[in-house]
C-alpha cells in the first residue's frame, strides 16, 4: 500500500507533469513571445467588438425599453415580440442569419467583405435587447413620487427623466449591467463562426497544428480584462454610494 503510493509519486507524477508541461508550456521564450503577440492581435479585435457593441447597444437598449414601456399598444407589442425573438434564439444563430441574409435574399453578400460589421450588427441588436429589459426593470422600480415631484415643480417629462430619474436608475441597474458586460467579453468568441479573427480563432490556428497551449492561454487575456472591468464597476458603485435610491 505504502510502496504503491511511493511508486506513484516517483513514476507517475513526473510523467503527468511532463505531459502537462508539453500541453501548457511553450518550448522557448521566443515561441511564447511570438504567439502571445499574435494572440494579442486577435484580442484587439475582441476588444474592438466589445467596445463598439457597448457604444451602440447601451443607448439603443434605452430606446427599445421606451418601446416596450410605450402606452401605444402596437409599438409595445411589436417591441416585446422582437425582444422575445432576440432573447429566445441563440446568438450564434443570429450571427449566421445576419451574415448570410443579404447574400441569399438580396443577392448581395455585403458582409463577405466586412465580416466584422455583420458580427457587430448582430451583437448590438442582441445586447440592446438584454439591456432594454434591465433598463425597463430599473425605470419601473423608481417610485412614481419622483415623477410627480418633477411635474408639480414645473419640470418637463424629459427634464424629470434625465435630471432626476436616470442616475437613480443607473445606480440600481449597475449590478445586472456588469453581469451582461462581462458576459459580452466572453460572447465575442462566438464570431469566429463567420471567420472573424478574434483571439480564440487565432489560437485555434495553432491548436490545429498540434500546439495546444495558446488556446488555454487565451483565458489569461479574458481573465485580466474581466478583472479590470470588475474593478471599474466596483469603482462606479462606490462613486454612486453617496446617495440612497
Amino acid at each position: 500500500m505504502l510502496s504503491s503510493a511511493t511508486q506513484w509519486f516517483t513514476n507517475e507524477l513526473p510523467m503527468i507533469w511532463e505531459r502537462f508541461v508539453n500541453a501548457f508550456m511553450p518550448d522557448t521564450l521566443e515561441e511564447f513571445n511570438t504567439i502571445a503577440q499574435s494572440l494579442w492581435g486577435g484580442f484587439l479585435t475582441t476588444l474592438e467588438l466589445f467596445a463598439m457593441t457597448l457604444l451602440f447597444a447601451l443607448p439603443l437598449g434605452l430606446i427599445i425599453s421606451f418601446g416596450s414601456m410605450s402606452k401605444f399598444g402596437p409599438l409595445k407589442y411589436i417591441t416585446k415580440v422582437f425582444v422575445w425573438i432576440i432573447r429566445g434564439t441563440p446568438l450564434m444563430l443570429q450571427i449566421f442569419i445576419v451574415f448570410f441574409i443579404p447574400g441569399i435574399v438580396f443577392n448581395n453578400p455585403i458582409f463577405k467583405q466586412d465580416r466584422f460589421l455583420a458580427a457587430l450588427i448582430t451583437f448590438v441588436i442582441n445586447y440592446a435587447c438584454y439591456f432594454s429589459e434591465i433598463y425597463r426593470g430599473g425605470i419601473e422600480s423608481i417610485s412614481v413620487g419622483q415623477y410627480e415631484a418633477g411635474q408639480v415643480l414645473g419640470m418637463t417629462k424629459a427634464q424629470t427623466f434625465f435630471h432626476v430619474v436616470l442616475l437613480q436608475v443607473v445606480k440600481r441597474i449597475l449590478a445586472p449591467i456588469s453581469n451582461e458586460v462581462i458576459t459580452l467579453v466572453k460572447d465575442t468568441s462566438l464570431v469566429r463562426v463567420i471567420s472573424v479573427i478574434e483571439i480564440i480563432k487565432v489560437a485555434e490556428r495553432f491548436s490545429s497544428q498540434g500546439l495546444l497551449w495558446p488556446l488555454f492561454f487565451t483565458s489569461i487575456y479574458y481573465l485580466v480584462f474581466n478583472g479590470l472591468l470588475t474593478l471599474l464597476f466596483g469603482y462606479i458603485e462606490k462613486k454612486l454610494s453617496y446617495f440612497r435610491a
Partner: protein
Amino acid sequence: MELLKVEGIKKSFGRTNVLKGIDFSLEKGEVLAIIGSSGSGKTTLLRCLNFLETPDLGKITVADHVVFDSEDKKRKSSREKRENQLKFGLVFQSFNLFPQYTVHKNITLPAVLALKKQARKEKLSASAKNEAIAEIEKKADALLLQMGLSEKKNSYPCQLSGGQCQRVAIARALALDPEILCFDEPTSALDPELTGEVLRAIKALKGNDHTMVIVTHEMDFARNVADKVIFMADGVIEEVGTPEDVFGAPKSQKLRAFLQKDKDI
C-alpha cells in the same frame, strides 16, 4: 378677493366615484384644512388641484384665471400647462426629495432647469444667465435659513431626519412662489416626535400671508392654524366652516362620529 374657486369637481376611478361634486372657494392668505377619514377623497381632491389627476367634470379658477375646465376640450400649450401647474405647490406625504442631489440643489434644480431652457430659447447672454442662477441660489439660501436648515445645505436627503426632509420639501415648493401651497398629510410619514417641527414650520408660513390648503389628520393643528375647515366624507363636502364651528359645534352626524373617534384614540 377670491383667490381659488373650485366648482363641481367630480372624479371616478373605474366604477368608484371618489369625488361626487366638490365646490369651495378660498381667499388670498387663507389657510384651509381638509379633514376626513381615509377614503373620503381628500387626497384625490388635492391631487386634482395639482394636475396629478384630471377631474372628470368641474372647473378650477385661480385669481379669475381658469386653470381647468372639463368643458374646454382645447389642448393647452406646454407653456400654459406649466404656468397653471406653478400656481400650485405641493408638499407630499413622503417628501419625494431627489436623493442624488444636495439639499440646496433640490431647491434650486427646477428653477435652474427652467432658466437654462429659457436661456437656450431666447439666446440669453452667459452673464445674464449666471446672474439669474445666482439669484435662484440666494433665494434657496434664504429659504433654508427660514426653515432652520442652513447647516444642512450640502447634505444629501439620506443624511437627514424625516422632519428635516419635509422642511426641505417645503422650501423646495416655496422656491417657485406658488400662489397656493398644498400639503398632502405632511406629517403622516413622520415619527411622532418629529411632527412638531414640521407643523411649526407650516404655521410660521401663515404669518407670511401664504395661501395654503392642508390635508391633515392632526386635528389640533387644523384647529389652531386653519381659517377654514372642510370635512369630507364619501366624496362630498359634508361640512364646512371656521375651526370654531367645525370642531366646537359640529352639525352633521358623520362629523360628530369622526371627531369622537379622534378623541377616543
